[in-house]
């Protein structure tokens, strides 16, 4: 009888004090389970890149990713901005390569699962994406024929073992590109169609090797994932898998009242879509209209899914085929970033507009209107305690 009384008293006390097991509704439990990393499906094959899962291609891609020789002046590689020990980003508000760019470097964990690349999605495959910084005058600032010559000189044998014979380089100018300086463009235009196609093919293969490497960059399980797994299996969360009361409140807000999970959903905390969230532009940067200006760019890209350098058949091109081309909501819409690891890599947003998670949460609570287009964010009534709780929860995604 006394034991009965004790357990009754303890239960009542526990409920009143709010300690003990966190109580989530079934709907909340379902949402939490859908965010856990164990629900991430295996990486799908990329039929547009037949070297995507060829180990030798990934090995060459890894070499190229870290090779500063892959730039005009031999000082910049992909890893200058995508640092392996910094979640493949650089902690800067705007990336710096040969020059200072207008956007923040994006972390690369899980990037191979995305349908669109860059903050505005102006590329539609991982391999086509890799070709862009190589020729961007502010990033690696090289040119197409120079990269092809470099491949032959430095990696000729490795290249040919993977991709087959390199083309005939006689009469191919040292520096030529459809996107380069006036001289480089003139040299490109003076080449024959066959020569241009041969160089484009080598160039596309560089992208395909780098993409094969990037496919191995995947997100790692965090405290949140351990918590979610225990919640799903009904096990008592142990050690660091146990959430504090503040973290539980943050999680509840994230999937509830604060509506974050609307866009930051699934095991990568992104819907892979584009949204105007009213993030203000940076004063001294050129105008940036986000997704609305990227549509024409991805359509014009000769390396897009409809182009001649895609492997496999056109059925893989659904995203490009059914892309939204003109809608008011594309104005200043940017790709929803994954929130995994975000807590340990400020600053935030497409041009590093906010320097802390506190600022990010204040931004969402205020929901200031967008300078152009309409923000999808609605003002939130959040107490100081609730704002801190959201930040505390976001930190569990980076521990």
């Amino acid at each position: 009888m006394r034991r009965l009384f004790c357990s009754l008293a303890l239960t009542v006390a526990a409920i009143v004090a709010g300690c003990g097991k966190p109580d989530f509704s079934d709907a909340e439990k379902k949402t939490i389970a859908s965010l856990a990393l164990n629900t991430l499906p295996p990486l799908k094959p990329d039929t547009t890149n037949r070297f995507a899962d060829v180990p030798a291609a990934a090995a060459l891609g890894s070499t190229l990713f870290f090779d500063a020789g892959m730039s005009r002046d031999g000082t910049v590689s992909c890893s200058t901005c995508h640092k392996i020990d910094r979640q493949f980003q650089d902690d800067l508000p705007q990336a710096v390569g040969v020059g200072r760019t207008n956007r923040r470097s994006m972390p690369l964990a899980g990037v191979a699962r995305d349908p669109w690349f860059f903050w505005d999605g102006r590329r539609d495959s991982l391999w086509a994406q890799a070709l862009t910084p190589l020729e961007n005058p502010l990033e690696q600032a090289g040119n197409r024929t120079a990269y092809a010559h470099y491949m032959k000189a430095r990696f000729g044998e490795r290249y040919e073992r993977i991709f087959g014979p390199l083309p005939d380089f006689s009469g191919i100018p040292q520096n030529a590109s459809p996107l380069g300086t006036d001289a480089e463009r003139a040299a490109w235009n003076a080449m024959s169609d066959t020569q241009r196609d041969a160089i484009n093919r080598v160039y596309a293969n560089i992208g395909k090797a780098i993409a094969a490497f990037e496919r191995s960059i995947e997100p790692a399980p965090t405290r949140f994932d351990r918590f979610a797994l225990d919640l799903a299996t009904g096990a008592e969360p142990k050690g660091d898998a146990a959430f504090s009361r503040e973290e539980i409140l943050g999680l509840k807000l994230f999937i509830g009242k604060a509506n974050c999970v609307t866009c930051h959903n699934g095991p990568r905390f992104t819907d892979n879509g584009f949204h105007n969230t009213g993030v203000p532009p940076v004063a001294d940067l050129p105008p940036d209209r986000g997704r609305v200006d990227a549509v024409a760019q991805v359509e014009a890209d000769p390396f897009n899914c409809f182009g001649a350098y895609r492997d496999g058949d056109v059925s893989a091109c659904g995203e490009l085929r059914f892309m939204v081309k003109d809608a008011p909501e594309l104005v200043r819409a940017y790709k929803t970033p994954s929130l995994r690891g975000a807590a340990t890599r400020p600053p935030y947003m497409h041009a590093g507009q906010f320097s802390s998670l506190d600022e990010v949460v204040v931004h969402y609570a205020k929901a200031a209107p967008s300078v152009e287009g309409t923000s999808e964010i609605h003002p939130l009534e959040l107490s100081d305690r609730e704002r801190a709780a959201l930040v505390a929860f976001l930190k569990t995604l980076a521990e």
Partner: protein
Amino acid sequence: MRSARRNVVRRRGTGLASIWRYVLAGVGLAALLAGVLAIVYLTAPQSAQLAGPDVARTKKTDNGLYVANFVPERGVVRQGELESWLLTLKTKTGDAVEGAAIAISGGMPQHNHGLPTSPQVTDYLGEGRYRIEGLKFTMSGWWQLRFAISSGAGSDTVLFNVVL
């Protein structure tokens, strides 16, 4: 908690009657708790999802010109993936509608945004069945798909709700 335990110790051995008093108190407390929980539960704001939009897969079009049926081609809806669905159009009298022009729009009424893709009719499969490709539901919740249909039988519209 600690004080509750101290109580137990102090009152040890005061006999059966007092144990019954505790049980009574326990029951009282439990009843109080149930009451509080019930109030919290009953006064919680009801979301539209509780009522639930009409998710019928077969509907008469708004002006009654057609009967439309809208189903995922593979039977299941998968979030975040490009999918194809079948729209089947019959006239009031049950004849298949051929050669219809179909415009598709939609979005999420609770989030003020349109569709993340622009789905299109890509094939006519016969017997009034049209294949619609490029649909993508990027999140769970209430989606709406509007079809503007026009054929020899006239122009009409129909709205389907999809809840994920």
